[in-house]
């Protein structure tokens, strides 16, 4: 949950960047085809990173609930698995945000 708490505040930032990129694609006909493709790919990646986080939170089961159906060893194994999953989501989120911020600056996109 500590890893989640580190990365979760960035989800709103991802959403705003995603929406700003989509708006740029819809409203700015002056950008080149290459820029358009890069922007579209980056918007898709932001959306994917956000969705991964939302799905993880939706599916995550708190240990107190797990106690009803699993023993201690099974709970520890579940939490260790979740730590790996959320760490990967964190890596993806941070990488996607970094690329998106650079692109936002390069293309002078306003939120």
């Amino acid at each position, binding site marked *: 949950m500590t890893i989640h708490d580190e990365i979760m505040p960035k989800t709103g*930032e991802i959403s705003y960047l995603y929406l700003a990129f989509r708006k740029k694609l819809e409203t700015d006909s002056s950008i080149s085809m290459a820029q358009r493709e890069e922007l579209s790919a980056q918007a898709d990646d932001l959306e994917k990173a956000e969705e991964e986080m939302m799905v993880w939170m939706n599916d995550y089961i708190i240990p107190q609930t797990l106690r009803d159906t699993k023993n201690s060893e099974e709970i520890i194994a579940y939490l260790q698995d979740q730590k790996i999953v959320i760490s990967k989501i964190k890596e993806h989120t941070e990488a996607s945000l970094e690329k998106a911020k650079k692109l936002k600056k390069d293309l002078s996109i306003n939120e």
Partner: protein
Amino acid sequence: MNLSTLSFLSVLMFLTLSCDETRKGSLPILGNKETLKDGTVKYHSIPSFSFIDQDSMPFTEKSVENHIYVVDFFFISCPSICPMVSRQMLRVYDRFIKENQLKFVSFSIDPKRDTVERLANYARNLGVNTQKWKFVTGEKAAIFDIAKAYFSIAIENAEAPGGFDHSGRLILVDTKKHIRSFCDGTDPSSVDVFMEDIQRLLEEMKKDEKK
């Protein structure tokens, strides 16, 4: 004591007295303001909106007309900050449960998963009156746009506008769509001050009605 120290103390005393005076008077209108050509001042206000509530009924600015209301942004599967904020919202709700002029609005920022059925179930589990406290969803872009309007006064760091949804802030809006107060919904002491602000705004409304 030299002159600059004296000046500093005078300024400090003035600011302290000014702050005390502000807390005693009516609540300030928060956010950017603009002076128009005719000299009138235009304050930041919440634009028109159109969403749906937990009963699939339209939720627009008409739904809060002639009411003051408290807003938060949340999503049901949020495992950390939102439950803390919801507990504080419930505290505020319980304290003002008899105030018919106050409503509560919780916007979901995860419309994909927070369907109306899920929102209705969430409201039932909280045990609140959904005539007083609405749980709202809609197009994601529209929700984020309206969030910008609510949080424009509360975002200290312009470089991180997206941080709002997990900031856990509660916002107080008056009948003229102006933002009058906000607080950190994860901090009970901040919410205590916020509740006093709600009380002041309710009293302000009652005074205006008598005029």
